[in-house]
């Protein structure tokens, strides 16, 4: 008689190591110390979250058109709602509002096209976005052509100004940063020396002093009679500042391209510029896209400093609205709204850069 050994079926794992209980034990109460931490954190959350939710959502006032609509218990979002347009575009005239709307709509569409996978002619769209679109945007914002009334730059403000400052700064910083990065890695002493001095100089000083310089000193350095717009001066300062940071990011990209690539380009008999433009830079830039996005995030946050030289970006506009004597005492709401907008932009960009980092990493 053959004995067939049939093992007893496995016992199910003990109740306390599977399911919700098991998860809790593993992740929250694995050791006494951990349990203590968990309980402490839970208490902290209990202290902070319910009052905050009450204030910001449950007891908050949303509807209404005047201060009386705010009962005073919770947050007064009416203030933010009524000022929303002002926060977005500053003192841009109401009759011309369609212009920023068109520009940002177009920019959004362009960006969407570039981010979506597997669409044709991406490089043409990107080229259009970088080379042509800024001019369209400028003439729409500023006007003066085709019968559009001129809107002076001092009327630009709010989120619109924040976006203009950061994207234009970036647009100028890219080519300048690339040149500086190449200069710093050049074998020629003078371009290398100049690039090093330029990069370290700008990276060594705070943006505030750069902005002070561009707003206070730049006019003194101009030949007599040449006057630069205040916004333009800030843009010059921001672009130079940003290009130094960009140069360092791109330099790390250049370092990451294997030596064989340089040698292969030489072997093909390509000139320096052909080798750089066709072989090295495409690889280098691709490698550092996450770095570039991160630099952009930093710039986006740093543009808030322009309020110190009297430009009205999003934060400055929000802060200026606190002095309206009809709406005193709603600074918390204003700051939270501004913070939320900044956070939304920065967080989504940083997520995108992380995603790219992962995607680029698969090659190794």
């Amino acid at each position: 008689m053959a004995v067939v050994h049939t093992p007893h079926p496995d016992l199910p794992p003990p109740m306390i190591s599977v399911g919700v209980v098991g998860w809790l034990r593993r992740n929250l109460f694995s050791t006494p110390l951990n349990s203590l931490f968990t309980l402490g954190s839970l208490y902290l959350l209990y202290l902070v979250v319910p009052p905050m939710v009450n204030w910001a959502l449950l007891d908050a006032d949303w509807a209404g058109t005047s201060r009386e609509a705010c009962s005073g218990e919770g947050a007064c979002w009416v203030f933010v709602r009524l000022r929303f347009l002002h926060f977005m575009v500053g003192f841009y005239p109401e009759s011309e509002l369609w212009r920023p709307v068109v520009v940002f709509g177009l920019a959004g569409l362009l960006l969407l096209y570039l981010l979506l996978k597997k669409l044709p002619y991406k490089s043409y769209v990107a080229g259009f976005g970088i080379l042509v679109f800024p001019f369209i945007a400028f003439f729409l914002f500023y006007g003066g052509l085709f019968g559009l009334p001129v809107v002076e730059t001092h009327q630009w403000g709010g989120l619109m100004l924040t976006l203009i400052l950061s994207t234009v700064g970036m647009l100028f910083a890219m080519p300048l940063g690339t040149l500086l990065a190449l200069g710093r890695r050049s074998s020629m002493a003078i371009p290398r020396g100049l690039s090093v001095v330029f990069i370290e100089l700008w990276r060594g000083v705070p943006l505030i002093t750069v902005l002070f310089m561009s707003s206070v000193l730049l006019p003194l350095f101009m030949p007599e009679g040449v006057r630069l717009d205040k916004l333009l001066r800030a843009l010059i300062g921001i672009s130079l500042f940003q290009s130094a940071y960009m140069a360092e990011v791109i330099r790390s990209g250049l370092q990451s391209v294997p030596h064989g690539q340089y040698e292969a380009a030489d072997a093909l008999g390509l000139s320096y510029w052909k080798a750089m433009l066709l072989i090295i830079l495409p690889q280098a830039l691709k490698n550092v896209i996450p770095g570039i996005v991160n630099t952009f995030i930093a710039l986006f946050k740093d543009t808030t400093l322009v309020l110190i030289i009297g430009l009205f970006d999003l934060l400055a506009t929000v802060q200026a609205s606190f002095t309206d004597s009809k709406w005193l005492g709603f600074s918390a709401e204003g700051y939270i709204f501004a913070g939320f907008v900044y956070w939304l932009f920065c967080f989504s960009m940083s997520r995108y850069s992380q995603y790219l980092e992962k995607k680029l990493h698969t090659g190794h």
Partner: protein
Amino acid sequence: MEGRGHSVCSAYALTVMERSENMMRWLNQGRNRALVFQVALMLGTMLFFFLIGANALSNLEQQGITSGFAFLSQKAGFGIIQTLIDYNESSTYGRTFLVGLLNTILVSALGIIGATVLGFIVGIARISSNWLIAKLAALYIEIFRNLPLLLQVFFWYFAVLRSLPLPRNSLHIGDWIFLNIRGVYMPRPLPDLGFTLLVIGFFTSLVAIGILFFWARKYQEKTGKELPVFPLSLAILVVPIMIIWCTTGGPLHWEYPSLQGLNFKGGMTVIPELAALLLALTVYTASFIAEIVRSGIQSVNHAQTEAARALGLAQRKILRLVVIPQAMRVVIPQMTSQYLNLIKNSSLAAAIGYPDLVAVFAGTSLNQTGQAIEIIAMTMAVYLTLNLTTSWLMNKYNARVLLQEL
């Protein structure tokens, strides 16, 4: 080479055309072209600076604006709320500069310490096995590093610290520490004569500990035996100080703050401007340092810990001798760059009136004297010096790391 031979052979037969062709060929040689390019670049740069300088000079002269550094020895005539050195209304602008500089250094140094400690805690919490703690740390990081620092400074200053009570209703711990909208008031240590002895004793102990470490290492290399360095050094630090303290009979007493008239007098004060700036700098920079610490620890290959375990090293030693040194290689350069950022970011003081270099010197002094070029140049030079020193060290370090990897 070819071109030169040719020109020697038929020097007389060269037409103008050929001569220019020759020139082109000379230019086409890499080295020559590089030379021409570099000379042109140098001249261009010099021309650029010459033009700027000439413009500035003619503008200043035409508008009748005073220039030069004579103002540094003039009387400044305004008060500063926080000064680390003696300063009053009759001090000079040069003194103002120093006061601002020291205030910048103070907030930067405190910020660096705070951000490092908080950053390490959050970074380690981020990879904690406790799910809740890890998520809270992640939440902290994602919130604070994605908000502009200036917004955070405003938030702490205008929203949080403004909700503290007035001096009469101060929050207090006994009679020692008072907290109100005008700052934190703490007792101030007043050193007696014997205090110098204490300081000398402290530093002597530090030197002795350094020697002990050095010697213990030599000893271990020679014999393979370890000395109990930690308890020994603790003893060296504590015992002499205790002895001095007891023999001199406590060479330190305290001046307590008290409410007199409108405000607290005596003691030490941390003004809310400093507190807000410090909080913002610490919280903001810590969110970056936390990520650096996390990625540093996670960058150490698991094989390394396994190999260390296979060698029979204790868990404590695995951390100290294997994981941390390798993590540090990733962490230190990035941390240095965060420290640099913090120093530069301390200039946001100007936005809330903390009297740092930018606020006091590039702000008030500039406005009173109107000498923009000199003052901004000096301010930039200070930050440059602070940063270039660190940046130079960092590049050296970077070069060393690169070399090892090749």
